[in-house]
């Protein structure tokens, strides 16, 4: 014979269990509705926080191995690093679109970050005419678009060691852009000397066309150095944007 108090206890526990099950079911439903509502309210396009501007993208073409300048109207942020990232995102969106002249999957999300730093002097790097491409400090170069003509070199402090950027260099001197790409972009990039070269040159050329102070570009993949983009082009070296600018409108 089951005592009466045990029956009451069992009944109370049963009722509590059923009530908790119902409450849990309702909480699950509410969470599911919140999730769906959150997905529906997510923006399908990035909010345009800046007015549209004319930007030049150097677009690669696999059929003839050329780089062609195209003008696009893009909303670009004022911050140079965000601006550079937006520019490269637009360029890679062109490559990810169906029927692209240089098909590469990934799109804008492939550019994780772009950092802009004062460009270090590259010792021993000379242009085809035998002149150093990047003088040691603030003496002006073609990359800087003549912005240093106001005596940047003469204003550099006498105690500054050669090759180290002075304060004036940081304001007006050439810059090094560090482009951090996603591993998905690099892993899915078509393999080949020409196709990899066109991707890198178009990135360098696009940066230089819109941000003329960018003279050098280095690449990272998921924040780490990587030996090659897709088996051929060296990603450990510094690329000079002047080289990409020279190849615009012609075969590299």
């Amino acid at each position, binding site marked *: 014979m089951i005592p009466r108090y045990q029956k009451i206890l069992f009944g109370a526990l049963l009722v509590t269990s059923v009530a908790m099950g119902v409450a849990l079911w309702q909480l699950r439903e509410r969470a599911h509705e919140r999730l769906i509502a959150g997905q529906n309210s997510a923006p399908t396009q990035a909010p345009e926080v800046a007015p549209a501007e004319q930007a030049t993208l150097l677009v690669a073409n*696999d*059929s*003839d*191995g050329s780089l062609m300048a195209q003008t696009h109207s893009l909303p670009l942020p004022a911050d140079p690093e965000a601006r550079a990232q937006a520019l490269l995102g637009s360029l890679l969106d062109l490559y990810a679109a169906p029927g692209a002249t240089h098909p590469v999957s990934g799109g804008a999300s492939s550019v994780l970050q772009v950092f802009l730093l004062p460009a270090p002097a590259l010792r021993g790097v*000379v*242009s*085809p*005419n*035998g002149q150093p491409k990047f003088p040691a400090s603030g003496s002006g170069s073609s990359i800087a678009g003549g912005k240093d003509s106001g005596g940047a070199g003469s204003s550099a402090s006498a105690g500054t060691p050669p090759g180290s950027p002075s304060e004036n260099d940081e304001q007006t001197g050439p810059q090094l852009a560090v482009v951090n790409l996603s591993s998905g972009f690099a892993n899915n990039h*078509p*393999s*080949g*000397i*020409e*196709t990899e*070269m066109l991707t890198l040159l178009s990135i360098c050329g696009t940066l230089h066309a819109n941000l003329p102070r960018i003279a050098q570009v280095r690449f990272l993949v998921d924040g780490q150095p990587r030996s090659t983009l*897709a*088996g*051929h*082009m*060296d990603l450990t*070296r510094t690329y000079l944007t002047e*080289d990409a600018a020279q190849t615009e409108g012609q*075969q*590299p």
Partner: protein
Amino acid sequence: MRWTERAWAVLAAGVLAGMQAAAQQPPPAPAAPQTRFVVVLDAAHGGGDSGARLADGQLEKNVTLALSVRLRSLLGARGFWVVTTRESDAAVDPDKRAGIANHARAQACLVLHATQSGSGVHLFASSLPPALRTGDSNLPMGAAAASPVRIPAWKTAQAGWVTRSLALMGVLNSSLLQAGMNVTLARIELPGLESMTCPAVAVEVAPELGADKKIAAGPDDEDYQARVAAALAAALVEDRAEAHPL
């Protein structure tokens, strides 16, 4: 005089006489000019480095090896001395490839690649500015301003051969165009190529497009490979004729 002292005296007299004779001898004649034309074929990738994956699942390392073997046969039949960087599916370091080419003292080095992107044949020469080599008097005016290179740096050793590499690229371009192929030319920095002390050109074979702009033959197509190899061999024959005119 003891016999040991006599022996030392005879030995010293013999050495003196030998030195005198050597001093009177005319200097040795300069070594005969190198007559054999050495070509280095570098089939890119190999081993764990598969290179590009082509349209029908073929790997670039196999296609470049097949092209290297085909070209070696053609060149051997034409009297070239051919050195290859690999004869099997083996991994070879880029520096070792350059080392093989440099030890061979080649007159032409072809680095063979294949890709599924683009079309025709892509030719690449080093983008290094030309540098003056010791004893090289055949350089353009602009290059003469550069400082002479006695011991070239490993990573920029190709600088002394850039002018001849560009000339070789021109000969290859003419021959490929004559064979009806679409050719693109470019200058780049490619690991391995930059360290070669020979006229060096990277040859990348891309698919051949038909009149409808669709792929008519992939890089692994035997007939296409044979035509590319024949055009490259013809170019090297022409380059040899220019280097050693009869």
